[in-house]
C-alpha cells in the first residue's frame, strides 16, 4: 500500500505540549522516508506497551500490536522470528520497559535480536496520574511517594552497555532532527537498537528547563569505542547536575539472533515421514 494516510482517524488524547507528539511526528517522517526508499510500509510492525506512549499504536496507520504493560519486547521478538522480513519497532514507556518489563529488555540486548526499541522516557507514570518510575530523580514526589523517593534512578544507557545492545542512543523530544536520525539509524541497524528518548511530560514532569540548557550533541564521539561509551554514559546519571549527551553512544556489528527454522521449511509429507521414523525408533 503506497501513499497511505499515515495518521488514523482515532481521536488524539495526549495533553497539549506532550513530548509524544514529537516522537509520533518523527516516526511518521521516518516511515515516509522508508517508503520513499522503496520499502513497503506493509512490512513494518509497531509494537507498543501500555501507557501514554502506547496510544501511538492507535494513531499511526500501520500494522500494530498494542500489547501489555512492559511486554513489547517478547511480542516483538515472536513477530520478528516468525517473519524475519518484517521491520519491527517497539515504542515503550520508561515504567513499561524499565520496571515491568526490564527482564525482556536485558534479554533482547543479550540476544541481539533485530528490533528497534524506542523508550518514551518521561520519567513519570502519566496514564496512572503521576507516580515515580525507575528513571525519576531521587526525591521525586509522586502520588505514591509524597515524601520523595529514597532511591536513585537507573541509568538505561549504562544498563544497555552492560546488557550487550549493539546500537545505543539517546534522544530528546525537543531535538526532532537528531531524533529522526537516531530512529532511522536504529531501524537500519542490523541487531538490537535501543534509543532512550528524554520526553517531556507536560502535566506531571515538565522538565524542559532542566534538559534544554544541559543537552549537547555527541558529534565527534567514537561510537565504536566501548570504554568511551561507558564514560559518556556515566557523565549524567539521570539524577545530578551534569551535561547530558545526545546521540549514539555505541554501535557495533555482531551476530543477530535468528530462529533456526520457522515452519514451512519442510513439507507436510516430510513431517509425517519424520514422525514415522520417530515412532519406529520408539518401537
Amino acid at each position, binding site marked *: 500500500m503506497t501513499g497511505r494516510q499515515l495518521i488514523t482517524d482515532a481521536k488524539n488524547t495526549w495533553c497539549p505540549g506532550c513530548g509524544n507528539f514529537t516522537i509520533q511526528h518523527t516516526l511518521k517522517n521516518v516511515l515516509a522516508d522508508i517508503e520513499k526508499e522503496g520499502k513497503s510500509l506493509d512490512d513494518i510492525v509497531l509494537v507498543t506497551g501500555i501507557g501514554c506512549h502506547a496510544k501511538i499504536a492507535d494513531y499511526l496507520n500501520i500494522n500494530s500490536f498494542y500489547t501489555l504493560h512492559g*511486554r513489547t519486547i517478547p511480542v516483538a521478538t515472536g513477530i520478528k522470528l516468525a517473519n524475519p522480513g518484517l521491520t519491527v519497532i517497539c515504542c515503550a514507556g520508561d515504567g513499561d520497559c524499565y520496571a515491568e518489563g526490564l527482564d525482556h529488555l536485558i534479554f533482547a540486548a543479550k540476544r541481539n535480536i533485530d528490533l528497534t526499541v524506542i523508550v518514551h522516557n518521561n520519567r513519570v507514570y502519566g496514564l496512572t496520574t503521576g507516580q515515580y518510575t525507575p528513571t525519576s530523580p531521587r526525591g521525586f514526589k509522586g502520588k505514591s511517594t509524597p515524601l520523595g523517593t529514597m532511591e536513585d534512578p537507573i541509568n538505561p544507557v549504562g544498563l544497555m552497555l552492560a546488557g550487550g545492545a549493539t546500537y545505543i542512543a539517546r534522544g530528546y523530544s525537543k531535538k526532532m532532527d537528531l531524533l529522526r536520525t537516531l530512529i532511522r539509524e536504529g531501524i537500519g541497524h542490523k541487531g538490537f537498537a535501543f534509543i532512550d528518548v528524554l520526553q517531556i511530560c507536560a502535566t506531571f514532569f515538565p522538565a524542559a528547563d532542566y534538559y534544554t540548557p544541559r543537552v549537547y550533541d555527541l558529534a565527534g564521539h567514537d561510537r565504536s569505542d566501548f570504554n568511551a561509551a561507558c564514560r559518556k554514559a556515566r557523565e549524567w546519571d539521570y539524577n545530578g547536575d551534569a551535561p547530558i549527551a545526545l546521540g549514539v553512544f555505541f554501535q557495533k556489528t555482531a551476530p543477530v539472533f535468528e530462529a533456526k527454522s520457522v515452519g514451512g521449511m519442510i513439507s507436510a509429507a516430510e513431517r509425517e515421514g519424520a514422525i514415522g521414523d520417530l515412532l519406529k525408533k520408539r*518401537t
Partner: protein
Amino acid sequence: MNEVSVLIGGKAGDGINSAGAMAAQLLNHIGYRIYLYFDYPSLIRGGHNYAIVRGREIATGTCGSMVDFVLALDQETVERHKNSWKPETAVIYNRDVVKAVGQGISLKEILAAEHAPEIMGNSAVLGGFAKAAGIPWETTEAVLSSHIPKKTEENLRVARRAYDLLKTVHPLPPCNNSPVPLLTGNEAVGLGMVRGGLEAYVSYPMTPSSSLLHFLAEEQENLGITVLHPENEIAVILMALGFASAGKKAAVGTSGGGFCLMTEGLSLAGMAELPVVLLVSQRTGPSTGLPTYTGQADFLFVLHAGQGEFPRLIVAPGTTEEALYWSAVAMNIAWEFQVPAFILSDKTLSEGTYSTDCSLVPKIPKSTIPLWDRTSPYRRYSDTLSGISPLAFPGTEGAVVKVDSYSHDEAGITTEEADLVDQMAKKRLRKEEQLVQAMSRYPQVSVSGNAAGMVALLCWGSTAGACDEVAGPLGLRVVRPVVLSPFPADALRNALDGAGMVIAVEENATAQLASLAGQYGIVCEKKILRYDGRPFTPDILREKIREVLP
C-alpha cells in the same frame, strides 16, 4: 491374563529411567502392553530413583503395588520396596553394593572382563533380567541392538555375560501382540502438536512439562519447527502470541507455577483473539509443592485463569493415543476459532511411558482457517455472524493489521464506547457458541468398562488407567470427559444415563470435576480422592471403591 511388574531401583544418576525404558522394550517385543512409571525426588544425584515397568496382555496406563521382578542397583531398592514383594518375586541385584536374597551379579567383574566402562553396567542388569524372565537371547539381542546405537557390540557382550550367569526363575509367556511404539505422554503431545501444524514451541523449563521442551528441541530440525527457551514464562506466552499475530502456529508448555506467570498473556490471547496452544502439566501444589510428583488440582485454575471472559478449549487426554489425537485437534481448534486451547496433563501422563497403538488414533478432522478475502478494507476484528474474523498478517499487501489488548473496534482501534464494547464482547461470546457446536462433533466423553453399569466412576485425565483396570472386573462404568471446556454437559449426561450412583475419582482434595459437574446438575454421590502426589494404583482404588459401594 498375562501380566508382569518389574521394579528397577538405584541412585539418581544410575540411569534408572533408561534402564526402565529398555526393560519396557524387552517386554514390548514379547507382546506385552506397557506402562512405565518413573519415581524420582527433585535432585540430580544421590537420591533413590525407581521405575516400575508394567506389562500386560491388554493396554494399561497404571502400575500395581506388587512386583514380580526387582532389579536392585542400590540397597534402598531392597529395603524400601519390601512391602511390594510377593514370595515368588525374583530379585536380581548388583552384589558389589547390595546385600539381598536372589540372584546376585557383580557388575564390576563383568565390566572388567569386557574392559567395559561403568556406564554399561545397566546392560548387564538387562541381560540378567532377560534370562531370569526367560526372554530368548535373540529377542534380547535385537532389542538392545536397535535401542543402543552407540558401542552396540560391547553392550551386547556385557549383557550376554549376565545372561549366561543367571537362571530363568520366572518365565514370562509371550503375548499375542505386535510391538508398538513406546511414547511418553509429553512425546505424544509433541507429535500431536506437530501433526496439527505446529511451527514454533516456546517454553521455560518446569517439571513435568520440560521433557516436551527437550524432545522438540532435539527433534526440531527433523520436524521443521522452531524451539525457543526465553527468559521466563511471561516472555514464553507473549512470544507465542507474537508468532501467532504474524501467522505462525505456536504452542507453549509449563506447569502450574509457570502458568501463573502466563495468565496475563492468556487474557491477552482472549482479548486480542490470538490462537495459542498451552500444555499445562500438573504436579502437586500449591506453590512449589512436590515438583516431581503428580496431581490434578489445577483444572479449575486453568478453567478460570485470566481476567475477563473469553472462550477457551481445554482437553485432558488420558492415554498417549488420546494425547496424539487431541493435541492435533487443539492446534486446529485454536486457529479455527482464534482462541487459547489447553492440553491439560499431569506427571503421570507426561512422564509415563505407554504402549501407543497408532491404529487407535482417529483421523484428525480437517479444519479451515478463515482468511481475509480482500473484498473490503481489512479489519482485524470484523464483526461477523459467527464472531470469527478473517485473518491477515503483517506483511500482507494492502492490509493494516491492528492487534489490540484494549477494548477495540472492528479495525483494532481502542475504544471505550459502551455500545461498541458491548458489541465486541458479544462477538467474542458468539465464538464460544460456535465452539460448543463444533466440539459436539468430537468424541468429547469417553465411556469404558461396563457401559450399562449401574455404578459409574467419573474421572478425567491420567486416572483413566487405574479406573479402566478396576472397572472391568467390578462391572463398573467409567465415564471420562476428555473435553473439559466448553463443558460437554449434554454428552456427559448421556454417558451417565441410567447410572444409579456416580463416584468421582480425582487426584485432588476438592473433587474439582465433580464440583463443576454439580453446577450442571450432575451429582456425584461419593468421592474418592488422592492428593499425596502419587497416582492411584488399581489395588488401592479397588479397595476404596469397595468401601463406598452400597
